[in-house]
């Protein structure tokens, strides 16, 4: 995002905040129909209203934390969070669910919304990356050490189905390395893969680095260099139909800003 855009946003936010303050108590409308003549102040701290953020399920812990910090920094704004698989969220937004911000776990699902005209095609900003990692139960019963080990039929490996982002990433790595995994199950979500590993049903599962970190002691993570073949990029953007574009943009700036990057890095996300 350019400096000019940021400045414009800040100025607009100030203007809206003032006009909102002007009609406070007389109307509950969130639209700033009438323009006040007062010059916008430089501090955009007086954001108001509420926004709903639709975020990929893998962002649950980071976005919950970031939202708390964002609300602390902007006491006038309440943020509602809705987590689900990115494609579920796309379906919900397409069907008219009230979202102000969409944070996707991959570019493909973001593109679905920009193609549909629900998000400006220039709006999405990449804010995080994620790569695959092998998750094994704590004692690593099958002795998995590398990505190639997963091709061993004796190793019960669970992966995501190719239809979901983590499965698409798995397929990309498989094709790039020539390692042919015969999975015992192709799950519809990372959570389901992780569940099979933590319960010890599976010997190994392919999930994201961030999922391994979030799972704590329940699983062991094994990094593998081939994971760089499929780097998942997370874009975030305001939904065009938002009634509170300033708060939405402020939230996005917060996520892509210093605090956001810190929280995301701690959870294992990479920087785009």
């Amino acid at each position, binding site marked *: 995002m350019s400096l000019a855009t940021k400045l414009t946003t800040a100025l607009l936010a100030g203007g809206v905040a003032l006009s909102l303050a002007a009609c406070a108590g007389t109307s509950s409308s969130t639209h700033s129909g009438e323009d006040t003549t007062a010059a916008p102040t430089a501090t955009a701290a007086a954001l108001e209203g509420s926004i709903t953020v639709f975020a990929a399920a893998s962002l649950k812990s980071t976005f919950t934390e970031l939202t708390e910090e964002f609300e602390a920094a902007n006491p006038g704004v309440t943020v509602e969070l809705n987590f689900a698989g990115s*494609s579920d969220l796309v379906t919900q937004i397409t069907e008219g669910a009230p979202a102000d911000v969409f944070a996707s776990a991959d570019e493909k699902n973001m593109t679905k919304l920009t193609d549909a005209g629900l998000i400006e095609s220039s709006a999405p900003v990449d804010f995080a990356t994620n790569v695959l990692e092998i998750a094994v139960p704590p004692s690593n019963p099958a002795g998995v050490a590398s990505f190639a080990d997963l091709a061993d039929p004796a190793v019960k490996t669970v992966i995501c189905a190719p239809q979901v982002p983590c499965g698409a990433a798995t397929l990309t790595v498989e094709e790039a390395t020539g390692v042919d995994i015969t999975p*015992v199950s192709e799950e519809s979500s990372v959570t389901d893969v992780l569940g099979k590993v933590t319960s010890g049903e599976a010997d190994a599962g392919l999930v994201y680095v961030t999922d391994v970190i979030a799972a704590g002691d329940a699983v062991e993570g094994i990094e593998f260099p081939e994971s760089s073949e499929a780097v998942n990029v997370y874009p975030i953007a305001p939904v065009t139909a938002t009634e509170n574009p300033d708060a939405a943009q402020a939230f996005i700036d917060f996520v892509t800003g210093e605090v956001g990057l810190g929280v995301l890095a701690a959870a294992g996300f990479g920087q785009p």
Partner: protein
Amino acid sequence: MSRATASYSGVPRWIVAVAVIGAAFVVLPLAAMVVRVNWAEFIPLITSPASVDALWLSLRTSVISTALCILLGVPMAIVLARTSFWGQKVLRSLVLLPLVLPPVVGGIALLYTFGRRGLLGQSVEVLGVTIAFSTTAVVLAQTFVALPFLVLSLEGALRTVGTRYEAVAATLGARPTTVLRRVTLPLVLPALVSGAVLSFARALGEFGATLTFAGSLQGVTRTLPLEIYLQRETDPDAAVALSLVLVAVAVVVVALAHQAGESEGLRFWRRRSA
């Protein structure tokens, strides 16, 4: 007969109005789905290898699960209806628990019982049987959630029929097994059929427990509901088409169960009027 009809006309209009809203609430979403079906692609969508595998697996596992439900459920219903023992009420509640339990919870419970590190899983694995990620796991999950339907309908019927005929047969010298075979089971056959049909329907629709416990692999564990769930990610048209197939099967099943229940009602009515 005419008196019965007359008493029905006394239904308040507002009751009818609310009933219509209720019916619309159930029927409208189904209609909305039918509207979304891509009819031009319908046949190719439901005959793709993945779809056919899923449908075939669903039918196979549901039939086996229903058979298991009958095998285990009939004795359970008889014990619950015909005997009394300490803790029976608690036992009945526990047995019927899968009916109200979220299927995911059932899946977790099964995992900790039959999973590789489960209560029984290790001893089963010693015998050379691996349940994890197999079709057996699907059948177990389906049986677990479907069993209460059979037990519930059969137990109710057994209590309603009473023990008069059984007592007569016993005084005439019939052994308990003969009484069961010649008197009790024929009496409750309609309830057994409708219970079995309901169990089949529940097994066919099973999703949560299967996903949690069995996994999802084409032709092995990915039943129709799991296939629909997955297809929705990339191909909503296929998901809707397959949903319609499941709805069609469900309609047939409900009709069958209703018919079985109807004939049961007919029997009682005949017996009473005779």
